[in-house]
């Protein structure tokens, strides 16, 4: 193990530079997010992920955000274990009828101010599952959504761009305020 650790030490970081933030996401956020809320959130965001019936494709790419290439935590973004610790609910899936109550309760358990990010095409409007008896169809039908990150699934880069836009808009508001 020591050999491997030493090798990695001299190898230098494998983490890639940050991507530019997503302009479309910035625009969506500017239109939706309450200024007061943004001021309070500051430079770090705690994210609680809720799978509301996704195929698990989005989860795979959300997991990838934490690998050493994307290293989400260097931006002050981190996944937390409880909605009570969270600033952001990140929701995937078309919101199945069986998950609706759990999503609502998770939202209610998240302290204000809070933001909701809907990840993936299913979370936007139900995607391929729109119209099913078992799906509500889109996160915004159940809880208010502040940002959509599209894709099936969105790549880690797309996720990172969207989340950085969220963070930057929070930080700039905090400074301005």
């Amino acid at each position, binding site marked *: *193990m020591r050999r491997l650790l030493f090798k990695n030490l001299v190898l230098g970081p494998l983490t890639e530079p940050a991507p530019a933030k997503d302009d479309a996401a910035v625009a969506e956020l500017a239109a939706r997010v309450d200024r007061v809320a943004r001021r309070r959130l500051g430079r770090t965001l705690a994210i609680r*992920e809720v799978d509301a019936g996704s*195929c698990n494709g989005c989860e795979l790419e959300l*997991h990838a955000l934490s*690998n050493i290439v994307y290293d989400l935590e260097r931006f002050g973004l981190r*996944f937390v*274990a409880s909605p009570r610790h969270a600033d952001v609910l990140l929701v995937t899936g078309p919101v*199945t009828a069986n998950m609706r109550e759990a999503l609502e309760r998770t939202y209610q358990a998240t302290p204000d101010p809070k933001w909701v990010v809907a990840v993936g095409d299913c979370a936007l409007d139900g995607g391929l*599952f729109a119209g099913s008896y078992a799906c509500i169809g889109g996160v915004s039908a159940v809880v208010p959504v502040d940002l959509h990150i599209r894709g*099936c699934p969105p790549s880690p880069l797309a996720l990172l761009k969207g989340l950085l836009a969220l963070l930057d808009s929070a930080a700039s508001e905090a400074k301005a305020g």
Partner: protein
Amino acid sequence: MNSLRETILAGELIEAHRPWPRAVVSRELWQRAAERLHAGEWALLGLWGEPEFAHLAVIERHTNECAVLSFACEQQRFPSIGRSHAPAIRLERALRDLVGLEPEGLADLRPWLDHGKWGTRHRLEQGAAVSAATHGYPFLPAAGDSLHQVPVGPVHAGIIEPGHFRFTASGETVVRLEERLGYAHRGIETLMAGAPLERAARLAGRLSGDSTVACALAFAQAVEAALAVQVPPRAVWVRALLAELERLANHLGDIGAICNDAAFGLMHAQCGLLREHTLRAAESCFGHRLMMDRVVPGGLGCDLPGDGEQLLVALVALVRSRFPELVELYDNTASLQDRTVGTGYLAPALAQQFACGGYVGRASGRNFDARCTPGYAPYDRLRFEVPVLEEGDVNARVWIRIREIEQSLSLIEEILPQVPPGAICAPVATQAATGIAREGMALTEGFRGDILAWLRIAADGKIERCHLRDPSWFQWPVLEAAIEGNILADFPLCNKSFNCSYAGHDL
């Protein structure tokens, strides 16, 4: 009248079913099928239904023959298979929820996928009735001194799919685990009914996102079997590349994640890096990191590009150069071994009974791989080994995955020089409307185990009925047994070593 072939001959053969036979059988033959399953002579591949029929897919152990037995329901009732063969219980509960067929004699009639939230029930049936499910769900009791319950989920602490686990524990020791699933039920089978092939293939590819290639492949092969479509040789070989890349990416990610659940972050970081390289190679070659919608009925939706071979050779070389020292690290770290060895033991007898696929079965002595049995092209022309261990613990499941990574790397190397030139897709959409209903079935090997696809294409070329059975159906139940007697804190480790799909199971 014991063998599967004799049973089929005694029934009414359905001519339109390919490639394995399907026969409508009498009540007596249906009940004997349950006895054969109970005796372990046959293994259960799937159980599903339509408003008029219950279908049972089985494989005979000593001949490796597959077949579907159908029972014409009288007043929407059929004799329960689950009454004598436990692996069928959840499938029958789901069938009751989705189609409304009553399994006669099944003791556990609690709704399974239906949580009482759909408004209507029996979605595959015309004139849906009101849901029978209510808000209360009685969990099975556990009696004893000082027992306490720990409810977990459906929203978990990590980035995990939704499901509920009800633990009954004595101190730290798990006395009983009961799973409650169905939270990710999206109604895929109903969305499939009446869908054109193209849309249905996309739905199949989202049964379980981590197995999108294997699911889409099972669906495509079933369509091709039904319509007797010849897939171009190039597509057959490139499909295997996609499937092995998917296996490689999942095994790499999961080995790291299992170690992470034992608080060994270094393995997680290193394996995560190799997984990322694999996904990037997949994107460079096929334009999508998870390779969704690349396998389509008739062949492939995209070709291996000119530099594809070079990219994949480089990937194999990269993983080969880094992975062995990670395996050594895993094997030589006592604190990690302390967590994985002997933890989450699955008895070989149980793995046999439930016909557990993939690494779950193979780590508990069950030598089954759909690539070999019943087998499909091009694996019949490739040389590879299917690793099998008897130990049945978390460690054994990790080792099966390590060996499978090595096999997948060799397979990619073996496939690349053999990929023939030519077309990548046969026209299917134009051939689908044959004027008669046709039925097809396929069994493919995803990273998690064997995936069954069964479908009927209507005379107009649209899907009339499609059933997809994820390997998790036969792995989730045995996880309940494997965790018994372990400490609660080891559940994430055990769960990750099984890595059953919630979405794939919930449909």
